[in-house]
């Protein structure tokens, strides 16, 4: 039976605090704390981080990748292919960008599960990521959540949660929507969409699964449903009628906010990392109908606990210092225009080095070089290279804080890091606390948006403190 073998999640470390919003707009719950993608993060970079948290650093056997989002950076051009390269997935790979609905995460999970069951995929990765759009001063500003989740699917002994059944249904329904180019989500009448949309449809989704499988409410240890806010979540829970213990004591919608298409998978990753063998879990996606998925945790489920999940990210949360940073992160405050040089043909030619971080090890002299030349810079041998992926972690050898280049944070920290496994990486730091950076500090490589030269996204690796 197909099931989940590995999990990973990533919530950006930045938080927009209710007090920060209140200071500008005069309203906003002081307790609110919205996870916020940094200026160098988007659904692709967050998806990469979640995927690496699930699949590891290179040597993956994933043969199909499903990437779900309602906020794909590219409206035209594959988004999943960027994840595949950055997570160093094999080139023989099926990719699919799923979108159009906050249900896309569970829809992608169903499609991946079907591929595993059908035998067309041996190892599938499902990633859901969102950078949720909201306008300054709107209530959404504090209720949404940016983030990403990833699950790997397969069959066999390493399955940690078997997927026992999936129920899907469709009903055209206008609750929330967004047209191309709009910077915020619109909503219909609040009472109507709660009662007839979220509550009625979610109940129908979960009850459809129960009647399809013959399971009873008592059989289910954990029920995870999508809701746009905590109040609606509570209304759905009441109407669904499971014992209180089946619902998360502090659901992600209350802890973090509405993560859109990433929400069901984030809840699932979090639940499975806390589940015991034998527990049944239902996770439901919502949107013009819905999906409900029934899983059973196996003896392997504890193996998921060591992977980086929601808890790992939340422990690293840090409030941004002021509202202006939020405006800058979202491109809402005019920045000095820079037009970095870039070229699609360079990005294509050097893809293995820049995206997959492949260094060269000279067969003649053993020297590891990154970025490598054609002729070995140590011994002069030409084209005698074995490829080796750079290690992810290392220690700072030297660094500086540079106030000259334009940056939303006012400075850029550049560091040279000595990597485990050999070689050095030199580049920008991210998520660093300026005064904490020091020689010897442990760092790891993270995939980030470097710039938008030529109008497309130029992604590369940065260094993040990892202590």
């Amino acid at each position: 039976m197909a099931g989940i073998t590995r999990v990973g999640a990533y919530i950006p470390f930045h938080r927009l605090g209710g007090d920060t919003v209140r200071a500008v707009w005069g309203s906003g719950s002081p307790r609110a704390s919205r996870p916020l993608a940094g200026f160098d993060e988007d659904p692709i970079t967050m998806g990469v981080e979640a995927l690496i948290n699930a699949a590891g650093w290179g040597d993956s056997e994933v043969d199909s990748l499903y990437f779900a989002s309602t906020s794909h950076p590219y409206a035209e051009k594959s988004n999943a292919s960027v994840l595949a390269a950055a997570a160093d997935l094999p080139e023989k790979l099926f990719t699919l960008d799923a979108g159009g609905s906050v249900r896309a995460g569970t829809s992608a999970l169903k499609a991946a599960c079907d591929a595993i069951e059908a035998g067309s995929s041996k190892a599938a990765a499902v990633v859901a990521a969102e950078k949720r759009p909201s306008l300054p001063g709107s209530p959404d500003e504090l209720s949404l959540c940016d983030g990403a989740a990833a699950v790997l699917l397969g069959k066999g002994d390493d399955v940690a949660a078997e997927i026992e059944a999936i129920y899907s249904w469709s009903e055209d329904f206008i609750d929330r929507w967004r047209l191309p180019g709009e910077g915020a989500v619109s909503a219909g009448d609040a009472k109507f969409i709660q009662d007839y949309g979220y509550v009625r449809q979610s109940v129908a989704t979960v009850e459809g699964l129960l009647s399809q499988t013959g399971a009873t409410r008592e059989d289910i240890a954990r029920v995870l449903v999508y809701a746009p806010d905590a109040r609606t979540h509570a209304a759905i829970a009441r109407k669904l009628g499971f014992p209180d213990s089946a619902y998360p004591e502090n659901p992600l919608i209350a802890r973090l906010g509405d993560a859109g298409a990433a929400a069901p998978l984030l809840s699932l990753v979090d639940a499975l990392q806390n589940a015991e063998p034998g527990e049944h879990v239902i996770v439901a996606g919502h949107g013009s109908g819905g999906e409900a998925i029934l899983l059973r945790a196996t003896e392997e489920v504890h193996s998921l606990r060591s992977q980086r999940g929601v808890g790992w990210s939340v422990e690293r949360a840090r409030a941004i210092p002021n509202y202006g940073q939020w405006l800058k992160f979202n491109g809402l405050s005019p920045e000095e225009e820079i037009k970095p040089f870039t070229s699609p043909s360079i990005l294509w030619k050097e893809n293995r080095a820049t995206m997959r971080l492949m260094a060269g090890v000279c067969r003649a002299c053993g020297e590891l070089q990154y970025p490598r030349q054609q002729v070995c810079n140590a011994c002069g041998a030409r084209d005698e290279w074995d490829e080796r992926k750079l290690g992810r972690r290392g220690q700072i050898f030297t660094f500086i804080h540079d106030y000259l280049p334009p940056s939303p944070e006012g400075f850029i920290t550049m560091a040279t890091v000595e990597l485990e496994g050999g070689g050095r990486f030199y580049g920008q730091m991210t998520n660093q606390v300026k005064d904490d950076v020091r020689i010897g500090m442990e760092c790891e490589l993270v995939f980030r948006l470097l710039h938008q030269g030529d109008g497309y996204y130029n992604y590369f690796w940065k260094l993040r403190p990892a202590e």
Partner: protein
Amino acid sequence: MSGSIAGKVAIIGAGITKFGELFEQSYNDLVVEAAFEAYEDAGVSGEDIEAAWLGTYLPLGWGFDGTGGPSLAEALNLYPKPVSRVANYCTTGMEAVRMAAMAVASGMHDVVLAVGAEKMREVPPRGSLVAQHVEKLHPMYSKGRTAPGSFAVLARRYFEEFGADKEDLAEVAVKNHYHGSLNKRAHFRKEITKEQVLKAPPVTEPLGLYDCCPTTDGAAAVVLCRAELAEARFDKKDYVLIDGMGLSCATGYITTAFNPKFSFIGFEATQEAARQAYEQAGVTNPREEIDVAEVHDCFTITEILNYEDLGFVEKGEGPDFVKSGASKLGGELPVNTSGGLKSCGHPIGATGARVVADLTHQLLGRCGDRQVKGAKRALGHTLGGPGAVSSVFVLSKN
């Protein structure tokens, strides 16, 4: 086998424009001023010049001039002679002189001109070096690097390994501003205090504003001839001989900071270029045998590293060398008596030619308040890209 330049080429004329924010002068104006001053000093006219080399680092980066030999030929009416433009990062001006000297040494030409020029202040502030790093270069690697940033990483590492600090760097800034106050062609002519240096706003921590050279316009030129012609044809009693010239490319431009062998406490390029030049010049103890030096103080840390890489002192002893006053006017080995890049400014293509021209003036005793008395042997050094390439000249009075 490598040969030697020693004794083959004489410098018979030198010209240096005022360095600064020369908004009223064009690139061609600067080239003409420097070249004609060198002509006059040499006692030649444009007709005597058989070939010329132009050093300009980055045409089209901050101006349109200097893209090729014709930029110089047009400004000086050198038609239809052989004229080339050379570029080698911040050693560019010295490269123009080196190419010109080799042409003379080869016997190809008897009298040649080398000009270095850069017009950096005809663009907005961010149109300068910062923009070169952000808007140009590789789309990914080293993005975020700036010129001060690529030297500040050495300061950080140097501090870590030798316990030096920002006060040590400030000594260099104070000394070179003092020297600059005595040089009427320097961009900055005000003395500064250590307190001012330490309180200046950060540019690239740990470097502050006074640790950095400014962005400047300027040009310099030298006229070279076969050594035996200096007196025979041009009636020179006093002139300067090139004793040694070294050039080394020791790391890559982008890959330096990725290179596990790069120490971040010095520049192999400088060490190797110095080795070549010293070998030709027969210098075995530079601290004893050099009377005056112009070295590449693009940032204060660089001057300290240069002392060590050039063999004036051992690794780690640079801060004490400057603190002792040894490198100040009146000290045992005055360094950057012009004010250096710190006070003169650093019009990239001009700098190397300015160093050679300035040392020519020192060796010929023309430097007034900042003259090193009795200077017989001089060292010039430039370093570029950041530390990938270095050029060293040893010069002496005939």
